[in-house]
């Protein structure tokens, strides 16, 4: 009994902390965009050289196949 009477308030504190954290996340817009971040990590960051290559290639539409 005594153990339960201590542990339950501790749980309540933890739940309260969890709720506070969730409210904070909602308030700061963490849940506003659920689409982009989900797959953004799949996209490789291109190095500058590769980006320049791509830009140069794209700028030359007459490039033969």
């Amino acid at each position: 009994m005594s153990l339960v009477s201590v542990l339950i308030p501790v749980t309540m504190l933890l739940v309260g902390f969890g709720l506070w954290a969730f409210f904070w996340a909602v308030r700061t817009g963490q849940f506003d965009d659920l689409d982009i971040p989900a797959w953004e990590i799949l996209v490789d960051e291109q190095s500058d050289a590769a980006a320049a290559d791509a830009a140069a290639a794209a700028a030359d539409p007459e490039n033969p196949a």
Partner: protein
Amino acid sequence: MPFAGCFHCGEPLGQSGYAAREPLRVRVQGTDVSVCCPGCRAAVQLIGELGLDDFYRFRTVVSPKPADTACAWSAYDDPALLQTFTRDGPQGRNVVLMIDGMTCAACSWLVSRSLQHLAGVRHVSVNTATGRAQIGWDSTTIKLSELLGVIASLGYKPQIATADNEAARGQNERRGLLKRLAVAGLGMMQVMMFAVAMYAGDMQGMETDVRAYLRIVSLLVATPVMLYGGWPYFAGAARALVKRTITMDVPVTLGLMLAYSASVFNTWRHAGEVYFDSVTMFIFFLTVARYVEMVARHQSTQVSDSLGRMLPATAHRLSAGGPGAAVTDIVVSQIVVGDRLLVRSGEVVPADGVLTKSSTELDESMLTGESVPVERSVGDRVTGGTINVGAPVQMCVTAAGAGTVLASIVALLTRAQSERPRITRAGDRFSSRFLARVLIGAVLVCAFWSIVEPGRAFDATLAVLVVACPCAFSLATLVAVASANAALARRGVLVASPDAIEGLAKATRVVFDKTGTLTDGVVAISRCNPLGASSAAECLQIAAALEVGSEHPIARAFTDPEVGREGLQAHDVQVVVGGGVAGIVNDKRYKIGTRAFANGAASPPSALADEIDDAAVFLSSDDGDLATFALADEPRPESARTVAALRGQGLGIEILSGDSIVAVRRLARYCCISTFAARRSPAQKLERVRSLTSQGEFVAMVGDGINDAPVLGGAGVSIAMSRGSALTLASADLILIGDSLNALPEAFSLARRATRVIRQNLVWAAGYNLTAMPLAAMGWVPPWAAAIGMSMSSIVVVLNSLRLIRSGLPRPARPGAAPLPLSFSPAMPAPALRNPAP
């Protein structure tokens, strides 16, 4: 993801339909790809330069085609105007944009990344579900017009979210509901744990002070759930009672109040049973259903927004004065009644008004769904949102902003969307009747036990009330409809009206419109009949040379913007509005256009008479007629497949078209449809649908034009293409987004599954209540069993409904993925057509 057709926008390459021309090529990630037009090529190049090529690997829908005409974004840099729709924040100036065409996660990523690449942009947050972007930028480094220009060159259409706080409202609603969901969910878990302990205690024995302690803790946890999580239902019930109506919120509130106050009372008197677990779980499930419904609703608001987006962003205002009047670029919201505006060729008419100078042709497909332009001359009314495909004109504004036809259509749709589903209302009525009987029953039970054995009266009465709580009833339709809406939205079908799912499930016959529905609405040359000595290929070359300078939609059928000429050049080209084009090719004078324009009095060979429909084009030289071109719009690549799939589901298929019999018969043959009718006016269409209905058929109508709007209204359930006219969208129950029929068969089968699930849910809920209530009234149901039974009945209903979302994985839309023989191209002559000898 590779698409057939243009690499960027997915439209077929070499639209012109005759000789396979060399398409435009562009290099992406080391491989050459084909694009359909310079706009798309510029977009692909821009994306490549920004190093965002990965977009093409991850996108799930084709991208929108960049607009041909440049927009005067610089009008947005006017400092006084900027003040009205931007505000200062910690991140510099802030603005909310609605971005049309941004429909997938990859699109949002592309928009957000390409803006972040610009110097001076400090913060970009994009919401795919609502199609809105919030941008914070440093106004000293970069101008707003540059930001808008980048978005436009990617193919999306940016628009300032002026004076509407809908974005903020949507965000607040979403955030608020998420918080309530968290409170209800976490609270439910806690109370559930205590409840399990107490159930175990009931069986194995438990010290009374431990039980009392657990009850008090449950009360403490359940109270915030009840007050915070349950607040929307209480508020809704109060609103309904004030209006003297019964909504679902009323029985829900009553059930919650009864169970909660009984539990509080029992906790206080240390006797009887508590139902905190049921209360919290019920609130949690209701909130989940409400959240799902909100997501679907936000997605369909996007559609009504895009109607408003049919207006251009800027307009050209003429200052009062003579012929040399100065032109100022203004933002469309600055237009006032009485303004004189210049509408250049290819631009969208920005407001309602009257033409004051010169006549032109307008593409009114926004209103009518028909792609053939109509002629308008001085004094004629023009409607905002239509496209000027002829000469530059001046107009005097008679209505702007909220007073326009377009705005009234948008308002109509918004009102239609705010209605709640009829099937849910039926559930409301059912459960409030049920609840009334339960209350009477509870009074009788209470009276009975008070006489027979007063000690058991309270427990027995409470058990009756808790067992009969309409939770399962209220969830039965709500969660099923929400799940079905979500599942449909994932497949590209937006539910815009209350009765859509019920109607789809009941449908026995599907009636299609032709133009824009089974066909893509883009005019193409279906055949060329040479009449003189020149071959078909020569005639097409001459025609292309003449038409290359014309902006007319029919001209586009003859020419690709860049590769149109193939060696032949036309001089002295004259465009006659409402007639055609005349010019000199190879030192010879040619005319192309309507019969009257091209060949005057000469009549075509009689053998051709029935081949010629409205859209025929004539080519003649000074020596006589050279050729006629039959025009038709191509069937959508998925039309035949969709029709076959619908027939496979046991649905009757029919075409009702306003077009000529030749075109309709050809399409019917292509799609294997045996029942079709041509040259039908809207009234005749409606009559046909009514007669079908009186024969006991339940008709689903699929259409896109305003001429379909009355039929859509008269049909049992109506489905509109997302590119259809605004009025059609407003009168439709469902909207096919992505401008494709692919999702249609699945929508029908999903709706049928949804109604099956609703029926199962109602039978289950009614069965449970009818079995448990007599037992509870007799005092044979221990209150803990009543609580478990009530929770279980809700869980069964929710899980059963969720099957709808999980059934079948969504397939990415891939227009033209399956190659189908297109018998419409002259390169593959349709065997069914007679080939009249010249």
